[in-house]
């Protein structure tokens, strides 16, 4: 019962092709001018080139995690697939029967990975905040001793030809995987705070209100998550952001009175906003780059349209 729950392994895979803001602008895939987006902290994104790559991103990310960390697929008890973009429904069967719609990506992923003992389900409709829900569910299952290994896999791929900008954020294609295990001492999730405000469900209609609501709610959610962990903002050794506009993070950190150097900023320019995979991308890179002391408090925060604000506090 007292076994610690921690994130045992992290990995991610971004689209194989790189495009600059100017490339995207030339192809008409941006809403805002490239120079404006650059001033907001973006520079380039990663794009999955082929249908095959788009289909296989999640599998490749998860496969890499299992192989790199020598995890037997049969040791996975639960598979959670998550994403920010709503998945396109599978087409109906040839005769129009609805059974075609039941071709779930999570079942296929379980099959392709050989996770034959795992229960598989998906988490969605939380925008970029889906990872926080996946981690929270994984931790709850592990604490309840209903599992020893939960594999969380996230994937978001922008449909070919669609604009790669959402409200001044430039989108990459990407997938990630996080293996949450018991017992595991490192990267222990110790507190979560999530807020969903359904009033803002119609994002285009409520766009300005969402912009105004973002900062006060984000500040409160992060403070409350840190408080729930028995910590203060001063105790945080590392803040792991999502890869939205660097300017918005600058403002949010100022609101929180957290020095910028304690946040792992910069990946938005290098890797773009890979929607629900961002936090895994940045957590993995930050652990390698900043190497926080074991047990040091690390805060994760993201916002997803819908509208969802989510924060987690981990012990490194």
């Amino acid at each position: 019962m007292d076994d610690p729950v921690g994130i045992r392994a992290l990995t991610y895979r971004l689209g194989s092709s790189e495009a600059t803001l100017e490339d995207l602008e030339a192809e008409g895939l941006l809403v805002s001018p490239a120079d404006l987006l650059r001033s907001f902290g973006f520079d380039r994104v990663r794009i999955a080139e082929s249908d095959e790559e788009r289909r296989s991103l999640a599998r490749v990310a998860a496969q890499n995690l299992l192989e790199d960390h020598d995890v037997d697929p049969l040791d996975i008890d639960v598979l959670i697939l998550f994403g920010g973009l709503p998945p396109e429904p599978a087409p109906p069967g040839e005769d129009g029967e609805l059974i075609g719609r039941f071709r779930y990506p999570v079942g296929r992923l379980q099959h392709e990975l050989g996770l034959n003992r795992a229960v598989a389900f998906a988490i969605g409709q939380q925008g970029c905040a889906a990872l926080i829900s996946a981690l929270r569910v994984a931790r709850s299952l592990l604490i309840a001793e209903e599992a020893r290994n939960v594999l969380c896999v996230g994937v978001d791929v922008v449909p070919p030809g669609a604009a790669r900008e959402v409200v001044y954020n430039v989108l990459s294609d990407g997938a990630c995987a996080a293996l949450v295990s018991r017992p595991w001492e490192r990267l222990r999730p110790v507190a979560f705070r999530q807020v969903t405000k359904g009033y803002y469900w119609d994002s285009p209609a409520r766009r300005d209100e969402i912009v105004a609501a973002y900062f006060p709610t984000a500040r409160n959610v992060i403070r409350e998550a840190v408080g729930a962990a028995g910590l203060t903002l001063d105790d945080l050794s590392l803040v792991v952001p999502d890869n939205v506009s660097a300017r918005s993070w600058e403002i949010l950190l100022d609101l929180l009175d957290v020095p910028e150097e304690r946040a792992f900023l910069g990946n938005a320019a290098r890797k773009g906003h890979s929607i629900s995979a961002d936090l895994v991308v940045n957590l993995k890179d930050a652990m390698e780059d900043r190497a926080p002391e074991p047990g040091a408090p690390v805060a994760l925060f993201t916002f997803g349209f819908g509208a969802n604000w989510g924060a987690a506090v981990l012990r490194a």
Partner: protein
Amino acid sequence: MTASTVLLTGATGTLGPALLSHLLHAGSVVALLRPREESARRRRDAVLAAVQRVDPGAPVGRLGFVAGDLAVPGAGLGPDDLRRLARDVTHVLHLAGDSRFSLPLPEARRNNVHTTLELLRVVESFDRLRAFGFVSTLYVAGTRTGDIREQDLADTTFVNTYERAKFEAERALRARRTDLPISVFRVATLLGSARTGEVRKPTAIHQALRLYHRGLVPMIPGDPVQPLELLDVEHAAEAVARLLVERSDAGSTYHVTAGPGETFSLGELIEETHRGFGDLDPAWKERGIEPPPVVRARTYALFERTVEESRDDAMVAVVRTMSTFLPQLIYPKRFARINMEAALPDWRPPPVREYFQRVLAYCLRSRWGRAPAGVEPASLSR
């Protein structure tokens, strides 16, 4: 002392009817009304009705009108009107002004400074003039911080063109204090009627409350503990009327403020607004709007710059509206009220807490001035 005859400009403004009520009890009043397309009779009737709504017992038979426009030479007064005013008027109260914060400076000057100078030229011929009162703003102190004395009028920078124009008008008046009995009444921000909550003309603070209600205020610059100088219309009117007619010492300036402990801090204003909207508008409460955090100047400036750069028309409009007055909050001030207390020691406005919720209720009922306040809208939100 003989009864007063007051020439009043700005009778149709926020303070007009409440001031008229007080002035009419003390004597007679001639209200200077600008000639407009709307019939003079209708405008006079509107002023009379507004006074009677404020004070059903007001002796409105003592209220007269004269057509004039301070934007033109001689205020557009005919020779007969000018002669009559010069003969009868004992006090002048210059209440008219253009309180829009976003005007280009030349227009703000035209409507606040040039008009004041024109009025001074007119009153030079008034034989019986005992007092000339100018209604100004506390924020002629601009971006200064700390203790502001009533006699202070230091050149500084300003948050908006209204502040600057009022400062320039005061400076022009100060230069004439040797030959005219000029007093200046710097009035706090008027919230509305303490009795009914009525807001005759929404101003910047009501605009800010409206944006808050619409969920469009992400943050406010300033310090949560800094006091905000807020005042109800009835007591502001009483103070100005009494200072003009009973007590005004020529050459003095008065800070017409509620005094320490009777107003809200910025943090309290946000808290009370949040509570009020939640109590008065259940649909608003369900939206889960968070109180806007009070932030440092640099944080607000960064947000402002980001919105400007984003070129998001709607949000830019919101931020530009807020930025005509919110930055004043980053320049905390304490307004001394020595002259005020000496002149009116018995003047005691109610604490803002006593009537603030009535003002909010009025704003919601009247849809921020767009609907008759007696009509209960089906839904108060949006």
